[in-house]
């Protein structure tokens, strides 16, 4: 194979690559705009941390959902069941380890919480695999049936959870070392919220690394844009989708543990309640975009906390309003995925 020199009539320069940072600016703009309304700086710090913590947990749960939609156009309205499952598994594991969770030792607390998170991820991932095989696979490419059957799957899943754990709310107290607040001047930041932010950032970092630095991540990003071409290149997108679905379910299980600890109470309906927020987040972010999902989650967390403090009566409506505003500005979400 001898290299040949061909005439190259193509222009020498391409348009400059300028990453779209405007959606990133929304977070500081929103936070700064809220500052004068809060009355005191310490209240603002507390609410901002609460919002970020809530946003990080939502991101952990929603990231798999947005990738599942991006890869296969599957809208899984049953995602909430994995959240509930993870949270109830945590009540079982942590309920049997009260000696460890009530200890003042952070290490003993972690040795109780980490297995609970691990078990929640493994079981939610396994149930996700069965969910994909039995419920979603028969309705690929049929959006209306997907909505109906995934909602039905969620109802059945929640009823099964009630059979196992009962229909009543179960308390899920924070481990002793996770309770209380850290003081920054006059501002109090709950330790668990700080932990949630750290865990959320860690999940985002791992996801970012996988998506940008590994071939599997490359395949996922390519599959979100044009799955037919990925198959034509010789890759089995169905297997990739199953892997993403299982990983997304496992992350929802992890998010369920974190959300349960955040609320300190677990109910069979919690997954369904948070489902609305998840869809708001992935629509705001741009369906299929992990980066957009991250920004969208933090925006939703901040808006929910600021609105809950400033105008509790409109708090429930605030995230719908946020979604409407974002979609009026960018109808395909903050980071639209260039789909074919």
């Amino acid at each position, binding site marked *: 194979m001898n290299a040949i020199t061909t*005439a190259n009539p*193509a222009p020498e320069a391409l348009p400059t690559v300028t990453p779209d940072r405007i959606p990133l600016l929304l977070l500081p703009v929103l936070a700064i705009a809220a500052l004068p309304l809060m009355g005191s700086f310490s209240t603002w710090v507390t609410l901002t941390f609460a919002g970020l913590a809530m946003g990080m947990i939502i991101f952990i749960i929603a990231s798999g959902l947005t990738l599942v939609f991006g890869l296969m156009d599957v809208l899984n309205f049953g995602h909430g069941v994995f959240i509930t499952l993870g949270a109830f598994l945590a009540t079982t594991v942590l309920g049997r380890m009260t000696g460890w969770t009530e200890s003042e030792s952070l290490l003993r607390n972690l040795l109780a919480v980490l297995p609970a998170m691990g078990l929640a991820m493994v079981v939610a991932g396994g149930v996700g695999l069965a969910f994909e095989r039995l419920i979603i696979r028969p309705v690929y490419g049929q959006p209306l049936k997907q909505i109906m059957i995934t909602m039905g799957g969620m109802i059945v899943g929640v009823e099964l959870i009630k059979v196992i754990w009962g229909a009543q709310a179960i308390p899920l107290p924070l481990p002793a070392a996770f309770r209380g607040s850290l003081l920054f001047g006059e501002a109090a930041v709950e330790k668990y919220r700080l932990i949630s932010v750290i865990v959320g950032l860690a999940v985002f970092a791992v996801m970012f690394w996988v998506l940008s630095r590994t071939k599997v991540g490359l395949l996922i990003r390519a599959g979100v844009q044009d799955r037919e071409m990925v198959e034509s290149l010789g890759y089995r997108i169905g297997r990739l989708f199953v892997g993403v679905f299982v990983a997304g379910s496992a992350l929802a299980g992890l998010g369920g543990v974190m959300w349960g600890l955040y609320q300190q109470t677990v109910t069979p309906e919690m997954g369904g309640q948070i489902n609305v927020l998840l869809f708001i987040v992935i629509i705001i972010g741009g369906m299929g975009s992990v980066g957009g999902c991250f920004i969208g989650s933090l925006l939703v967390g901040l808006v929910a906390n600021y609105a809950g403090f400033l105008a509790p009566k409109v708090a429930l409506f605030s995230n719908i309003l946020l979604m409407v505003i974002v979609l009026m500005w960018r109808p395909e979400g903050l980071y639209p995925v260039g789909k074919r």
Partner: protein
Amino acid sequence: MSAPLLQLEGVHTHIGAYHILHGVDLQVARGELTVLLGRNGAGKTTTLRTIMGLWPPSSGTIRFDGGEIGALSTPEIAHRGFAYVPENMGIFGDLTVRENMLLAARGAKRVEDIDAARLEWVFGLFPALRRFWQHPAGLLSGGQKQMLAVARAIIEPRQLLLIDEPSKGLAPAIIQNMIVAFRELKQTDTTILLVEQNFHFARQLGDQVAVMDGGRVVHAGSMADLAGDEGLQQRLLGLSLAAHQ
């Protein structure tokens, strides 16, 4: 004459309620470039997509290198040694040129794993790809995207390239560049099935030609014979070669 590398016999394809291919018979000779010509809607693109398993045949046989592939999935067909460049080029616009190439090199986990000599050869064919290696492919011009699409198809050796209208929408200078690149490819004994509407482009490259109309192959023979017979061109394509030049 050796057995054809690819052979379609009586292939019918339905897309939903529509019956698109009505018994396609087609042979692609090993080591040659076969051009599939025909008017819009003749069934050329559907034929390529059917071969790739993207629209599975409803009846008929597709044999590749002696084995039946009509019932295989698209990834399985790709693994048999096919490379496919669709009409829309199938470029992943949000990925860089480098990432597009890495995806096409199935055997490579990292760019460093790609055969360096082959990559240099591809850069020789399409120098723009080296310059824009780290750029998002979505920012490339139409011609550069087409170069990337073909480069992806040849970054690893494949037995058969299926290429759908590579000259579509390209400036004449870039089409000439593509012709030079395809000639170089032909020298490597790569078998190519090329769908084209631009007869001037097709004539310069084709060894064999098949003309489709109404979802069937209505003529098959050597490109030299078709290029030399203006009456046949008029009858099959509705235009003489002169009208395309």
